[in-house]
């Protein structure tokens, strides 16, 4: 069973890393968005650094949403979802492996490049590490909440638009607590740890609920 779990994880990582796999799409979109914002806002550094964490978080959220519809749809289209269904591995664990691979190829790289992009939005030095930390613990929630929506749209042809529409409202708490924790670190009224711990809790909850919901959605599509 562990072998099947690792096989799904490894395969999704391999597919994402090959040309056109979608792994780099989120990263390029994130980069483009954050690079363009200072041009749109103008040269007001104070304004930029004040809304910097929000821009980075919004960018990360949209970047994760952009390729989410393919999470199960590509497997459904080429028939490899049938293979996963025929495995002795419970569908929940298969979803967990796929969600984990999705986070490793989108959320994790986004969190890791965010310090670099922080420079573009004049993020103060003391805010960099907290920002990375919030993205590291917050993006798994985006991947797994997204997995639930992606599983619902798996069997829909051209269901690309429906996934962000379904998923975006559910990610609002992640955005609120992610941004407030990142802001708290660069001066705010609340201590950093309060929203950060809530963000951790949301992520842990989303991993469980998202996994079970996505597996249920895949089963009901049968």
């Amino acid at each position, binding site marked *: 069973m562990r072998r099947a779990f690792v096989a799904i994880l490894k395969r999704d990582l391999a597919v994402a890393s*090959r040309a056109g796999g979608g792994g780099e799409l989120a990263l390029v979109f994130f980069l483009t968005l954050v690079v363009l914002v200072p041009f749109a806002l103008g040269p007001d550094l104070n304004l930029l650094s004040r809304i910097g964490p929000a821009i980075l978080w919004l960018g990360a959220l949209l970047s994760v949403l952009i390729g989410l519809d393919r999470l199960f749809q590509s497997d459904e289209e080429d*028939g*490899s979802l049938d293979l*996963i269904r025929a495995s002795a591995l419970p569908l929940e664990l298969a979803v967990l492996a796929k969600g984990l691979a999705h986070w490793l190829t989108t959320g994790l790289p986004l969190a890791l490049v965010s310090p670099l992009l922080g420079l573009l939005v004049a993020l103060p030095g003391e805010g960099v590490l907290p920002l990375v930390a919030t993205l590291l613990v917050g993006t798994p929630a985006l991947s797994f909440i997204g997995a639930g929506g992606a599983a619902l749209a798996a069997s829909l042809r051209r269901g690309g638009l429906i996934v962000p529409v379904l998923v975006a409202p559910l990610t609002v708490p992640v955005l609120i607590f992610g941004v407030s924790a990142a802001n708290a670190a660069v001066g705010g009224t609340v201590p950093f740890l309060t929203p950060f711990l809530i963000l951790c809790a949301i992520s842990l909850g989303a991993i469980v609920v998202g996994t079970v919901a996505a597996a249920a959605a895949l089963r009901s599509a049968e």
Partner: protein
Amino acid sequence: MQPGEAIALTGRNGAGKSSLIAMLCGKLRPDGGNIRLEGAEDEADLAEVSHLVGHRDGLKTALTARENLAFARDVLGDAAATPDEALAVVGLGHAAELPAGYLSAGQRRRVALARLLVSRRPYWLLDEPLSALDTASQAMVAGLMRDHLAEGGAILAATHGPLGIEGAREVRIGP
């Protein structure tokens, strides 16, 4: 279906051959009736003892033929042959390193059929197994199916043409 038995499922396009196969492997729920596996508790077991090669090949185009088969073997369990051995049997030993996307439709079909060999499962549910294959490959697949039957396996194949197996029972669906 008995061990060693082959059933050729025939019928016009849209008669329900693929739907029946989807029900047998637990992918579709039947509106009426039930599918029972003797000695097993529920229908979930059916998917775990059968091999499905549907009309979609189930291959990731970005991965090589070998990687695709290694994935199938790890996910399905009950490893039988290595991916390289299976590819050699279907005559694609030279293409192991090629991404599946570079292969022709017939070659991709053969890689999908090689999946039957990398993990051992008694029931083969095949949907149009011979489509896109040339005459030599069709004979090769017929040979694989005969070997499987000789080992006590069972095969149900939806087909429009002859399967090339002696004594296959024909079940006709629809008018």
